[in-house]
């Protein structure tokens, strides 16, 4: 059974569609890249999947997924970097699903937290406050938290933007490792070569879905050009969409 099913899904803001008539399925354990120009609706699609915004039309079917089964790394994390909290405590918040509001953090958990911090290469940073981290180290820390979340579906919104080659390569290895452990991963990406090298499936989005399937069939020069030509601006005087809702 597919993990995610989109039924003629339209998402947007103030009745203007940002993702228009998307239908399709994401299989359990799939590793899908979502590609498209700025303003194509990638972040909007992710917010819809996580449940932060409601569909304007159509629906998203999350088979057996509770909200806390989904781990979401937003494009611009709304993090107050001046807050006095250590890297260790921040990563430990990844255990929320298992420990909840009051659950104690036991020895096993401490081992898991240390392991997650080591996996992203931040050993030695445990007691640093988050305000002292660089952009790349911050992203590594958020990945460590994602590791602990043990989610069934992982949604990464442009995780490698403004991150250097070494850090992206390290983090990409983590994503590949997840893939072999079978959570479903969706990632919005701009680096076409990286997608071709590491992501078996792609969805090319330009508000309307342009192509979806095996990466080599989707990311053709013709499709990419088509995606680039689709306009970005909302039409303030657009008529109501005539396509019949499913």
């Amino acid at each position, binding site marked *: 059974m597919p993990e995610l099913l989109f039924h003629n899904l339209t998402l947007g803001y103030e009745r203007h569609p940002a993702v228009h008539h998307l239908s399709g399925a994401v299989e359990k354990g799939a590793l899908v890249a979502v590609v498209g120009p700025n303003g194509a609706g990638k972040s909007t699609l992710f917010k819809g999947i*996580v449940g932060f915004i409601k569909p304007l039309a159509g629906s998203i079917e999350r088979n057996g997924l509770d909200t806390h089964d989904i781990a979401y790394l937003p494009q611009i994390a*709304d993090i107050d970097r001046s807050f*006095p*909290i250590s890297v260790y405590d921040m990563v430990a918040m990844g255990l929320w*699903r298992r420990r909840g*509001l*009051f659950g104690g953090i036991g020895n096993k958990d401490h081992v898991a937290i240390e392991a997650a911090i080591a996996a992203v290469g931040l050993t030695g940073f445990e007691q640093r406050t988050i305000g002292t981290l660089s952009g790349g180290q911050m992203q590594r820390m958020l990945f460590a938290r994602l590791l602990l979340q043990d989610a069934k579906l992982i949604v990464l919104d442009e995780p490698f933007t403004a991150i250097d080659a070494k850090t992206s390569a390290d983090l990409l290895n983590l994503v590949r490792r997840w893939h072999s452990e079978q959570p479903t991963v969706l990632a919005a990406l701009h680096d076409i070569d990286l997608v071709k090298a590491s992501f078996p499936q792609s969805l090319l989005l330009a508000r309307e879905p342009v192509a979806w399937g095996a990466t080599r069939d989707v990311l053709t020069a013709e499709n990419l050009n088509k995606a680039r030509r689709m306009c970005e601006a909302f039409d303030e005087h657009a008529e109501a969409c005539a396509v019949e809702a499913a």
Partner: protein
Amino acid sequence: MIYDTLIAPFADFEFMRRALVGSLALALGAPPVGVFLMLRRMSLIGDAMAHAILPGAAIGFLLAGLSLFAMAGGGLIAGLLIAFGAGLIARATLLKEDASLAAFFLISLALGVTIVSVKGSNVDLLHFLFGSVLAIDDPTLMLIVSITSVSLLALALIWRPLVLECVDPGYLRSVSRAGGPAHIAFLALVVLNLVGGFQALGTLLAVGIMMLPAVISRFWARDITTMIGVAIVCAAISGYAGLLVSYHANLPSGPAIILVAGVLYALSVVFGPVGGLLWLALPQRHLEA
């Protein structure tokens, strides 16, 4: 000599002992709430809430005279109404929470002063505004101590969502629905501690024992747990030293307590190891790595 200055006032007079216990209880409950207010950039919200309590207390006074529970209950109801009302309007309209709170507390303050001046005397008004820590009786003490206990317990219960909502609200929203309820519970704690404080320090200065120690702690600690510890210790020192100063120099006790906290604040701004002015001014060689 030292005994006479530091201990005798409390050994000799019961009202000084009560005042001390009351101040220490306040010092335990209010500063942790203040630390969270500061970290959420809501430092002035406490001030607004303190004004908002006034009409409730005044109505309580109107109905029952200088009765502790009528005034505290009235203050509590008014404070909670205004906290939730302002929150609701902020969510339902395009006003931000601080703007709608500003509107609410100003109306509330005007209402409160009107009620007190129509029905009471100037002495009553002064009592409302500045409290009287030296006139704390047993029921008042019980009230303050209960509020402190409730406050510390509640804070322990909502600790995780509260911290997470400050640092990373988006993440909290993705893992739990506790953010909203925790925020409301936190606002209730602010009101509760102000009601406790205003018996002793008055509506105007109750915020002082909440916010000044919190602001001071920022200069001494880098993590939130230590900050709360520092804030509590500062508030306790202010309470004790403030009472002594007021006793020996014959000054009003509430303002004396807050002024001692003010002195601690000034010292911290200069000498505090975390970003104090002195350390910024000292030329220090940078490290090798």
